[in-house]
């Protein structure tokens, strides 16, 4: 067993790190304040090859694999800059590649790989949260179309043109559909104002007799849960990578601050209270990182990682929150000001315990898997 990245992984990681330093770090604070993402960001991500990493080569992707993709996501998340909605093309693309019909693959995958459309997926609803058994959105077959009615809440990228994977009940059976966004019958609210900053745009999407071609049934009637679990398993690994990166950023900022800030003529880094905080931060990040790499590797081997990814997200999201909290503590009151990156990191860290299934959901999944053995 070797706990070492391969040469290929190191080069990809390095390129992603340089991209993040060059393109994201300089704009991160501004994007957090005003949400203005450079219009050519998607184009830059495409040119770097980051959008098609989980899409097969025959459809224009690079088939780089989940571990390579996770290495990229970790580096791109480090600047704490919410301008990476296009990266969801990898999750949506992989789902279509694994579970879609040939017609669906040919229609959507090349566009997703080239960033010409932005993919997304939406399960949560206003009154039902993320409870899979309480879906209110319905779909019925009328001639050659499925007619969908309902609302999805916190749909990230729901306002951007492209395919969305939407879950609805067909005769009380959870079923998935590929929906072209922004067509007749599909409408969006304005983005929520979130504590994580303005760059992340998440909306309500409403379906009023939205007609979707029969061929846009994704999987089978009643097969929605399996598709949901498949998508969210990768989503969890992605979020774990982002959470780890954010925690690392918090640690690096805290170390930098502790070395510079002086009290009574000495850096606060020489004080035991600060040193212990830094040590606690560091010893949480390493296990989160290597567990993320391992689960990504297992996914690449074709293994079912529902339980592992749930455990991983539960752990990594807690790491991000705790480490960000300790990072602010090192900064003292200066950490409350927007002059320091730690303020933005702290606001963003909480998100990981709530999105893509809350920590409570992850506990239920992990416990359910354990007790089935």
């Amino acid at each position, binding site marked *: 067993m070797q706990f070492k990245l391969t*040469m290929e992984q*190191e*080069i990809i990681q*390095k390129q992603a790190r340089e*991209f993040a330093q060059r393109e994201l770090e300089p704009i991160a604070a501004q994007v957090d304040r005003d949400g203005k993402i450079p219009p050519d960001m998607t184009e830059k991500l495409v040119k*770097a*090859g980051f959008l098609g990493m989980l899409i097969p080569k025959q459809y224009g992707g690079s088939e780089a694999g989940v571990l390579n993709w996770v290495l990229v996501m970790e580096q791109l998340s480090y600047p704490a800059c919410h301008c990476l909605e296009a990266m969801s093309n990898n999750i949506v693309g992989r789902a279509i590649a694994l579970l879609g019909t040939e017609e669906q693959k040919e229609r959507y995958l090349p566009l997703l790989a080239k960033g010409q459309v932005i993919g997304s997926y939406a399960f949560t609803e206003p009154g039902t949260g993320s409870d899979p058994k309480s879906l209110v959105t319905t779909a019925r077959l009328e001639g050659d179309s499925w007619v969908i009615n309902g609302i999805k809440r916190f749909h990230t990228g729901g306002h951007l043109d492209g395919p969305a994977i939407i879950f609805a009940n067909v005769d009380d059976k959870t079923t998935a559909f590929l929906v072209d966004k922004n067509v007749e019958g599909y409408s969006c609210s304005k983005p929520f104002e979130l504590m994580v900053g303005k760059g992340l745009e998440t909306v309500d999407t409403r379906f009023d007799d939205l007609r979707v071609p029969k061929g846009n049934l994704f999987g089978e009637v009643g097969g929605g849960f399996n598709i949901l679990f498949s998508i969210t398993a990768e989503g969890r690994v992605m979020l774990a990578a982002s959470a780890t990166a954010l925690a690392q950023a918090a640690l690096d900022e805290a170390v930098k601050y502790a070395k510079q800030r002086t009290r009574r003529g000495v850096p606060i880094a020489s004080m035991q209270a600060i040193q212990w905080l830094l040590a606690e931060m560091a010893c949480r990040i390493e296990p989160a990182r290597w567990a993320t790499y391992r689960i990504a590797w297992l996914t690449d081997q074709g293994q079912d990682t529902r339980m592992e990814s749930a455990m991983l997200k539960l752990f990594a999201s807690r790491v991000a929150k705790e480490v960000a909290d300790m990072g602010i503590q090192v900064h003292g009151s200066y950490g409350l000001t927007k002059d320091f990156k730690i303020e933005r990191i702290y606001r963003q860290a909480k998100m990981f315990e709530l999105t893509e299934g809350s920590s409570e959901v992850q506990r239920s999944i992990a416990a359910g898997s354990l007790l089935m053995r």
Partner: protein
Amino acid sequence: MNVIVCIKQVPVSGTVSIDPRTGALKRENVPGVINPEDLCALEEALLLKQKHGSRVTALSMGPPQAEGALREALAMGADRAVLLCDRAFAGSDTLVTSYVLAQAIRKLGGFDLILCGKQSADGNTAQVGPELAERLGLPQVTSVQRLEVYQERLEAERAVESGLQWVEARLPALITVTRRINTPRQPSVEAILVACREKEVITWKTDDLGIDTSSMRFLESPTRMAAAWVPEPRKREGEMLAGPTKEAVRTLLERLRQRQVI
């Protein structure tokens, strides 16, 4: 046109320390990158490839991990990559390095232009390029920040203390470049995967280069490193400019003019 680019893998800035016993840099298990000025040399070669259809060969002397630098060069667009790797090369100074590189270049043969970075980020000697040119009997132009290549000649712009200098040279020639010459491209994920999974990095040892290691003693450097240490940062006296911002800025500009910084 055939272009050879010499690249070196150097430690990531801030990750290397000095062995107090030998004075050498401790490079084991330290992450490496292509030396920044060599990266610019490679980019310049790739621009020539785009313009003239040149064939670009990346050449590096280093330990096995230097293969990573060559894979990156292939991902950027180099056509061929050669690693000179042998235990006998360990600890080589610039004299031995230039000798080994020259042997490899003679073996590769048929080149029109050799591009090197002006100096490495770890050694900072700026000697290998000029030594290599002398060994190969080539005209050399160093510290180039702009390059135009024609059929049998080139024109190079270099910055000197008194201003800019334009130098013309006949091909084949050797050029060392500075970071001002270009901004290196970033290879895509697809290109990295192809470079790592499908392309070959040729490895040559002393036997392949016709180097008799028993005779390498004569290549021992006439100089010896006496000591190496990290100097203590020099404490300088600063001056705080007080008063309203506009006034402070005016004073600052005056100070900078007096010191001929601007």
